[in-house]
């Protein structure tokens, strides 16, 4: 261990700290219950204090100096004592004394720990504050009596004796107020208060550029009385009293403003200021709206992120006090100025949004977030400095091949390095809090999840089983964090950053340690289902689905399979706004495109695994949480959601399609409402990650919708030469940009319709399949009439299977009008999910539509390379055009922007 303290000792110490904190909370609770400290409160305090001490059984307490003296039942004085004075307005009003009745080993102050000294001082301070509050309150109450006119003078009198500085501050505020209110008498007072104002004919400084002499002769107290005298001539008494009351309370929050506005304040300082604030708010502190807002913004900037867009959203919903709980779960280096990063901030914000809207929809109240701890972004630097790894920062400026080559070495070095003692302590506290539930360690970098930025999923997330002894668990957790840290220097993120001009941006990475949502099934641990939901749907499998209907990618088990594109499996796609419109409708489609694998944590081996759902269900189906929502049973050509009872697990054919969830629960409606409220607050599309353990819905992440580079709306160049445009489209557009296309394979709709027999129609499909293989190393697109891949009437669409088009970058279906009739296109439904997972773009073209361009002469006049590629298909030369743009030093670009409902394809020079 890096700080040379045995682990157990650290644990014991942490437990002591926890006891002290809980003692402090108890006492604060007691004080919050009432404004005046009565006998019952005193007795409660006497009882609570020993619980915060190391040896509560032999600990007794005495409080004296008040109406009565109070002490523990078995109180006797001894020589082992800790004493603290209770002060109100700098005056000693009483004492708290803590005695041990028996001898105990010597510690920092006799047998007492230095932390126990802090504890008792803290209690004394809080009691003192409460007493002051009590005093002020009784004065104010006196003022309220109608027969005592101008008794608020008494307040000034009292302040004059107890807290003259406060009196001066209040007077200053009053004179400002009077000036703003246009009371001319006040101007003179202000000048005396702040002589630089308006002196010398309104100039701020004298000609000599000499600093002002302070009017030291002014008696500020006397001036204060004068100010209030003037005030009483213009403002009614109640207003003066109210103002004094409000400003006094506001004055108490100055500490918070000071800490927050000072950019040098460490996270530790901020944390204790917030802690203090949290305990003061119930009845002692009141912030003006503007001050509250400024503190809120400062907190967001310091703890969450300094992204202006994020702050703008967050300041509307995040309360100052809500940081209090968050800060308890933040682990940071001693002198930390770090933040918790994008992912963590996004989740925190979403939680606040939902909680502030909980009255709008009962579902919002039920949404949970998993227990989460955070390591601040400067934890990475702390880790690197602690292990002398600073030079690794230079990795990002190396040539990418070298980065790739050196990455395994970086990873090994990171995994063999240790964490600084304060971080280790923090991690131990986190582990203590989590218990032995499986955890996921996620990156929460400052680049990630920025509003409007595209930086999703570049860094690692690691699952850990978190089983074994405390030491084993700690080691496993540290190992995972080190690995996530190392991923920042991985070739893919560095390459991505280089491409997007983000290299010079200083990358810091927060860490999010989150409890994995799930239940134990056999030796495995996983949620019933999980996924990602987008408030804006970029994949429309039916023209009836609107972008605002949203999209869910959902899978059984851990959500990793929904987040990532899969090469050998499919997530289920749902549209929350059109729950009835499913991607897959026939039995074949339902079976083929149902998830076959599930990601789980194997609790026995402690590893993250991908296993077959079928074998999992055959063995442990009975234990699967909420199975009937996830799977259906296929019997011949009939498919029905599994019923909670009576399933023959060894013989049934299971198909994961979430039919039970869609049809028998209000899940989709609830998700839609959630996305809507988040989207409204974000003022733009959002995406969330979620998991469900069969009982509760958990929100795992929320951010401004990151498109991922593959579904970003295209930035359509403005200066495209009109002559170079081959087609444009304005209906059912999805997002995407494909540039550098070297070949276009075009099936001429008119020539296709003329083909005389079925065999020649089939041959078109065969030729496309062959071209798909021949051109597999090039970037090509397919264009042609009607519904590609439909079964049924072959005349209405080229007969191909997915394997015959799987190398294309794009499939363009052309709906050419024939008479009054414009055919429906397939939207790629027959292999929609294959297209999605392989990132093959789909575009429907309506050449006869309004305001669209379709230059058939381009296809007719271009050279056709079909015969040179496929001599045996010479017969189809009129039907299939293979346009090789590369040979003419040209290429083809397609830009599609769903937000503008516009797409364009044009030729460009290479």
């Amino acid at each position, binding site marked *: 261990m890096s700080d040379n303290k045995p682990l157990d000792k650290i644990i014991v110490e942490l437990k002591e700290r926890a006891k002290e904190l809980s003692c402090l909370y108890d006492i604060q609770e007691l004080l919050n219950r009432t404004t005046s400290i009565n006998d019952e409160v005193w007795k409660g305090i006497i009882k609570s204090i020993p619980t915060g001490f190391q040896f509560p059984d032999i600990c007794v307490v005495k409080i004296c100096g008040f109406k009565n003296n109070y002490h523990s039942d078995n109180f006797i004085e001894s020589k082992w004592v800790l004493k603290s004075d209770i002060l109100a307005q700098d005056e000693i009003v009483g004492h708290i004394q803590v005695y041990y009745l028996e001898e105990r080993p010597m510690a920092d102050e006799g047998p007492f720990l230095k932390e126990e000294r802090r504890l008792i001082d803290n209690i004394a301070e809080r009691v003192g504050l409460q007493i002051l509050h009590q005093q002020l309150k009784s004065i104010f109450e006196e003022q309220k009596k109608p027969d005592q006119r101008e008794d608020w003078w008494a307040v000034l009198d009292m302040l004059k004796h107890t807290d003259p500085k406060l009196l001066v501050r209040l007077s200053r505020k009053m004179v400002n107020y009077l000036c703003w209110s246009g009371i001319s008498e006040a101007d003179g007072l202000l000048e005396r208060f702040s002589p630089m104002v308006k002196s010398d004919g309104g100039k701020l400084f004298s000609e000599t550029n000499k600093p002002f002499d302070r009017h030291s002769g002014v008696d500020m107290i006397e001036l204060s009385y004068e100010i209030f005298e003037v005030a009483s001539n213009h403002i009614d008494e109640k207003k003066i009293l109210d103002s004094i009351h409000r400003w006094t309370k506001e004055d108490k929050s100055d500490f918070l403003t000071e800490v927050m506005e000072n950019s040098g304040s460490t996270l530790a300082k901020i944390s204790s200021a917030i802690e203090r604030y949290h305990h003061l708010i119930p009845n002692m502190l009141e912030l003006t709206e503007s001050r509250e807002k400024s503190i809120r913004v400062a907190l967001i900037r310091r703890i969450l992120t300094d992204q202006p867009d994020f702050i703008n959203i967050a300041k509307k919903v995040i309360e100052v006090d809500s940081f209090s709980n968050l800060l308890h779960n933040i682990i940071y280096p001693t002198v930390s100025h770090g933040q918790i990063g994008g992912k963590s901030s996004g989740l925190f914000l979403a939680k606040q949004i939902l909680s502030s809207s909980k009255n709008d929809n009962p579902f919002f109240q039920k949404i949970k977030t998993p227990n989460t701890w955070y390591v601040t972004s400067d934890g990475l630097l702390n880790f690197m400095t602690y292990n002398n790894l600073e030079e690794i920062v230079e990795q990002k400026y190396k040539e990418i091949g070298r980065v790739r080559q050196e990455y395994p070495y970086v990873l090994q070095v990171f995994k063999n390095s240790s964490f600084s003692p304060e971080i280790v302590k923090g991690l131990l506290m986190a582990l203590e809090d989590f218990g032995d539930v499986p955890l996921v360690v996620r990156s929460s970098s400052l680049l990630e999840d920025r509003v409007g930025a595209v930086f999703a999923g570049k860094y690692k997330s690691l699952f850990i089983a978190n089983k074994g002894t405390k030491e084993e668990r700690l080691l496993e957790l540290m190992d995972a964090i080190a690995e996530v840290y190392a991923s920042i220097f991985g070739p893919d993120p560095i390459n991505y950053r280089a491409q997007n001009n983000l290299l010079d941006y200083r990358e810091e990475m927060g860490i999010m340690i989150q409890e994995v949502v799930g239940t134990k099934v056999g030796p495995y641990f996983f949620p019933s289902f999980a996924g990602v939901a987008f408030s804006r749907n970029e994949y429309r*499998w*039916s*023209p*009836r689905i609107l972008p605002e209907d949203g999209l869910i990618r959902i899978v059984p088990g851990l959500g990793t399979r929904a987040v990532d594109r899969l*090469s*050998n499996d499919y997530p289920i796609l749902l549209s929350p706004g*059109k*729950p*009835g*419109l*499913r*991607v897959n*409708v*026939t*039995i074949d489609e339902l*079976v*083929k495109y149902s998830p*076959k694998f599930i990601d789980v944590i194997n609790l026995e081996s402690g590893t993250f695994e991908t296993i077959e759902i079928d074998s999992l269900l055959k063995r442990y189906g009975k234990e699967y949480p909420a199975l009937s929502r996830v799977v259906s049973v296929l*019997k*011949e*050509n*009939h*498919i029905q959601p599994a019923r909670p009872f009576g399933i023959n697990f060894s013989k049934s*054919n299971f198909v994961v399609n979430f039919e039970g969830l869609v*049809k028998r629960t209000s899940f989709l409606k609830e998700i839609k409402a959630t996305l809507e409220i988040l989207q409204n607050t974000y003022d733009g599309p959002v995406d969330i990650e979620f998991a469900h353990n069969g009982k509760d819905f958990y929100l795992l992440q929320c951010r401004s919708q990151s498109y991922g580079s593959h579904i970003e709306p295209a930035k359509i160049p403005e200066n495209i030469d009109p002559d170079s445009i081959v087609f444009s489209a304005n209906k059912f557009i999805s997002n995407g940009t494909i540039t550098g296309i070297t070949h276009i394979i075009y099936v001429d709709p008119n020539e296709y*319709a*003329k*083909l*005389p*027999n*079925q*065999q*020649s*129609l*089939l041959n078109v499909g*065969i030729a496309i399949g062959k071209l798909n293989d021949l051109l597999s190393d090039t970037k090509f697109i397919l264009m042609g009439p*009607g*519904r590609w891949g*439909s*079964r*049924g*009437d*072959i*005349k*209405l*669409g080229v007969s191909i299977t*997915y*394997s015959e088009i*799987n190398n294309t970058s794009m499939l363009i279906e052309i709906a050419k009008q*024939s008479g009054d009739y414009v*055919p*429906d296109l*397939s*939207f790629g*439904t027959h292999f929609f999910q294959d297209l999605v997972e392989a990132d093959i773009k789909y575009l429907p073209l309506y050449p006869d539509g309004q305001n669209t361009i379709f230059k058939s002469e381009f296809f007719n006049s271009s050279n056709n390379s079909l015969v040179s590629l496929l001599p045996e298909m010479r017969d189809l030369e009129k039907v299939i055009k293979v346009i090789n743009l590369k040979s003419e030093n040209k290429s083809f670009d397609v830009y599609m922007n769903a937000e503008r409902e516009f797409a364009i394809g044009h030729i460009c020079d290479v």
Partner: protein
Amino acid sequence: MKSNSYNPFEVAQKQFDRAAEMLDLDQATQELLRNPIHEHHFLIPVKLDDGSTKIFKGYRIQHNNARGPIKGGLRFHPQETVDSVRALAMWMTWKTAVADLPLGGGKGGVICDPHNLSDDEQERLCRGWVRQAYASIGPKLDIPAPDIMTKAQHMLWMLDEYEVISGVKSPGAFTGKPVGMGGSLGREEATGYGVVITIREALKELDINPADTIASLQGFGRVSQYAFELYIQMGGKVVCVSSWDYNEQKSYSFKKDEGIDLDELRSITDTFGGIDKQKAADLGYDILDGNAWLEQDVDILIPAAIENQITIDNVDGISSRVKILAEGANGPTTPEASEIIEERNIFLIPDFLASAGGVTCSYFEQVQSNMNYYWEKDEVLSKLDVKMTSAYIAVSDFATENGLKLRDAAYVISIDRVANACHDRGWV
């Protein structure tokens, strides 16, 4: 559409004309059989989930009912042309006739894409279809079955609507229902078993003991697996099976010279008949190219995957040992390849006949539903055996008597049967 472009109905009519000529059918019979006897076209208004109403075009084409009630699929398709449906309806008439079932042929559907409709909307559409077609369908008139993009659920909605209107329980009004809701056992096995029953009869004719034969199959889906099952029960040995590898988007052949253990191979196969290549290699299979199944030194080839698999390009790879090629899939052999196979005196059992097990079982479902008494699987399969055997023998005898290839004989005999029924009824 230009007149010289491909029109499936015209193709079907031309095909019919050739057979009619062979059978020397009179003009009236030819005219009757060249066209559907009834065509129902109607509109179905459906309330959509958003409150709007959409009008769908529905239809039922009844080609011929001289031999009995119409049987045929009902499809949901956004762009079916009426001519392709007419062709399919005619095809159903010949299909029921070749299996010698007391049924006619038809086809129907709705112009729609179920991908654009919610389940609730589809249910309303199904019920709407029945309300429009009610007068011309029913267990004694016309029995629709699932087809492209329709499934058991659609049949159940339609049946329910039919029964509500008629006020009578009539499970025999639709087929393709789930077992327990008026469906028949044995449907899984029917097509694959049917293929092997025709092979068994062909072997008898060739005087070959099935136990002395070896076979190679293309595909490992439902048809292929059940063909395999019955074939090894007869004593045969399967040495090679091909299967589509979805991840690699190509097919492979799996070979074991000592004979493939069906249960073993099934245990490493997914729902779609995809065989796990790695596991197969571990179990000692030779993993060969996707075309290798066709080139094996076997007695019997069963293409049971998809259409257009045996073409002019690969037909020459067929071993000289092959005696029978039974088409378990629809149209697996192109016409040119078919000619070469027949020239080589390989016994080609056409899809039309070999895969008639499916429609036969559908007929059995209808019979059982009408009785409201459902047979055990054994009984279904033994009745299937009887039906398929006699269908095969009739076609084979007809071929011998008339000097025809089996493919032509199957087609001609079915037209002959329908024409005779029309004569006997005194229609023509």
